[in-house]
């Protein structure tokens, strides 16, 4: 069974779209009552996932889109960032620090990256919306 996203957004895979997705995610988090630090972490992870799409997914191809699906429960937010591009390929390190995926991994409670049969890449990121450890 496929879950229906609570929010879906499709934008061109260009740098200016990243802020659009970030602001959308921020609005979702605030509507769900997440604290400021959690909102910041989710904005950063979403930004890094979209940056990967803009930089790598459609390199040498027709420009494509970034697709965002957001699934929310009371305690958790799952973001699915999808492209229809080349799939995960080692990127020549022309610039950048290669910090995107490590940052996403550090910011998420679960991270899954798959390459669907129809092409592209799906990055699924789950975030806890409530701090379950009061000492942290």
């Amino acid at each position, binding site marked *: 069974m496929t879950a229906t996203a609570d929010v879906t957004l499709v934008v061109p895979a260009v*740098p*200016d779209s*990243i*802020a*659009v997705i*970030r*602001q959308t995610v921020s609005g979702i988090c605030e509507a769900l009552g997440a604290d*400021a*630090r959690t909102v*910041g*972490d989710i*904005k*950063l992870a979403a*930004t*890094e996932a979209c*940056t990967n799409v*803009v*930089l790598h997914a459609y390199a040498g191809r027709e420009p494509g889109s970034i697709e965002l699906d957001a699934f929310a429960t009371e305690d958790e937010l799952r973001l699915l960032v999808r492209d229809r591009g080349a799939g995960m390929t080692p990127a020549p390190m022309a*610039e*950048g*620090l290669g*910090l*995107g995926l490590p*940052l996403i991994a*550090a*910011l998420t409670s679960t991270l899954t990256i798959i390459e669907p049969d129809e092409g592209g890449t799906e990055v699924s990121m789950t975030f806890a919306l409530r701090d379950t450890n009061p000492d942290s």
Partner: protein
Amino acid sequence: MTGAGRIEATAVDGGWPVIALSGEHDLSTAPELRARLHEFAEADAVIIDLDETTFVDSSILGVLVGGLRRARESDLPFGIVLGDEAHPAIRRIFELTGLHDVFPIYPTRALAQAGLSGDGGPS
């Protein structure tokens, strides 16, 4: 666009130039930041002021690391201003990436000017 970032470069009489970032910065503003840094890179030290910055991602960190590397190659100082009142998200990404131990970070512009002058800055 909401939260769009601005980059402002300011010459300082008797001090190092300051590049101040306000708002949110990501891949869309990284080229402008890189260009501003290149303006100073080979001739001058630079202070990057992040006190009014509300978001940066790894694209921006990559540009800053490039600026730091070029400054070190030219034996010029390079510092970042990140005060106690700075947005927590900025300190968070520096800590997550370990870059808070890589950059010279100062709590105010004045302390950055003084600290970098100690590295051989303008008299």
